[in-house]
């Protein structure tokens, strides 16, 4: 109990002091998570739409594979990407390892299946009559796609928020590919892992509290959107 009390007080103290180290860590975390989520959404939402909207032979198989990828551990992704981008790897000359870009690459592999999968379920929930209504009113395929995505927007945003929550709370990829370099690739989660290793539980928990605050904010947004989606379908 003392530990928790100390940690909360420390966290508040550090936050109020606008501690530059803490600010750096939070900024790196948000920056990396933002770009991962952005690129993940740009790739995942259109792919999810195409899979949900089109009928093709291996559709079931593709969805099963996607669901399997959802269970991919972050360390496996970390190892895989590491083997490609380390100095001895195929893309070694790009000098990507231990940069924020490397974390983003790894996190993309983590969340693109999440976004695709959730987009598929969001699109599949949309009544087919939206498609036929748009078609009969003279829409072309692109315009029909736009209509369907517009109707599925809450589900799609929920997918993107879920992806953001996943990357900001993720530690394996950030540690393996980012290397926890202070000021460069040290994120909230890797910093927590470090503080734990150092035996500085107070700081680790303080960072955890900051992370929880973000998670809480994200979930509030998520719930608000979900509430609206439900209200819309009634």
């Amino acid at each position, binding site marked *: 109990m003392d530990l928790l009390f100390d940690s909360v007080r*420390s966290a508040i103290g550090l936050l109020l002091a606008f501690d530059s180290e803490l600010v750096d860590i939070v900024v790196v975390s948000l920056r990396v998570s933002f770009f991962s989520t952005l690129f993940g959404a740009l790739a995942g939402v259109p792919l999810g739409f195409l899979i949900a909207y089109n009928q093709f032979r291996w559709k079931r198989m593709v969805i099963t594979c996607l669901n399997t990828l959802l269970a991919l551990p972050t360390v496996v992704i970390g190892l895989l990407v590491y083997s490609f981008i380390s100095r001895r790897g195929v893309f070694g000359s790009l000098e990507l390892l231990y940069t924020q870009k490397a974390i983003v690459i790894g996190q993309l592999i983590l969340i693109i299946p999440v976004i695709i999968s959730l987009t598929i379920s969001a699109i599949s929930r949309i009544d087919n009559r939206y498609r036929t209504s748009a078609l009969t009113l003279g829409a072309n395929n692109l315009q029909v796609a736009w209509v369907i995505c517009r109707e599925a927007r809450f589900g799609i945003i929920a997918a993107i928020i879920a992806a953001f929550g996943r990357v900001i709370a993720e530690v394996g990829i950030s540690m393996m590919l980012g290397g926890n370099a202070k000021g460069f690739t040290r994120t909230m989660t890797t910093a927590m892992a470090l503080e734990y*290793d150092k035996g500085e539980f107070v700081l680790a928990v303080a960072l955890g509290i900051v992370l929880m605050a973000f998670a809480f904010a994200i979930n509030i947004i998520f719930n608000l959107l979900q509430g609206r989606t439900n209200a819309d379908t009634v």
Partner: protein
Amino acid sequence: MKRLLAIGVALMLGSFTAGNTLASDKVLKMSTTTSTEASGLLDVLLPALEKDTGIQVKVIAKGTGAAIRDGMDGNVDVIFVHARDREDAFVAEGYGTKRYAVMHNDFVVLGPANDPAGAKKQADVSSALKAVSESGSLFISRGDDSGTHTKEQDLWKQSGIPVEKKTITVVKSGKDVEISTIRPANSDAWYVSIGQGMGKTLTFAEEKQAYTMSDRGTYIKYKFGKTPAIDLEIVSEGDEQLANPYGVIPVNPAKHPEVNNKLAVEFAEWITSAKGQKVIADYRLEGQQLFFPDAM
């Protein structure tokens, strides 16, 4: 079928509890550093100990900070670490009963083969580090509050390079406590603190072709025991300042009555005995002697 299953479960439970009771007889909980465990010494030392004394050791390997913390919290019976000042403080504050000097090895400063900072030419470690800082070549610091990190901070302080102290205030047991780290001043562009273990730090430095500091054992493992060998060379070694003494401290039963002090003392006395010291002296890593006994 049901009966078979029941028998199976009973057997499993039985062997589980039996194993537990057997094991709890002479089991010592020891926290040590990841580098000690990674050196491979414990793999020969502990079987020899068990053969002699029947003591089984449950090793919990962490960074030095966390290993000492485990001792302070009474999570373990004994600590086996290498951070002299902090070990003395541990005893002085009453967390440990007595420090047993066990052995030492040494640290080395590593860098890329082409040595852009020209550190190899320098006479001692202080001037080597100075050369690194002046060249602006990347230096990777463990930054994890480990023994190696503690040593590295000392070396920067003694090198005469201006250093800066970063202090943050946290609350411990309701009181404000300052935690500080030391690094070269104005070094944001070339000094990278990654807060990871020695192995990770070596691969990080290799990846970036940067300078770093390592204990010799881990370096030998990565240089001679691994294919492909790590692409880093020793640029400074042998300086007295680079010595790395190891100590064993039983946790004080006055602070934590639940710890097994008797077993801890037995362990400490065995490791500093002629038998224990010989095992340490004979230990070879990739054909090289790694540790030098201090208790003989």
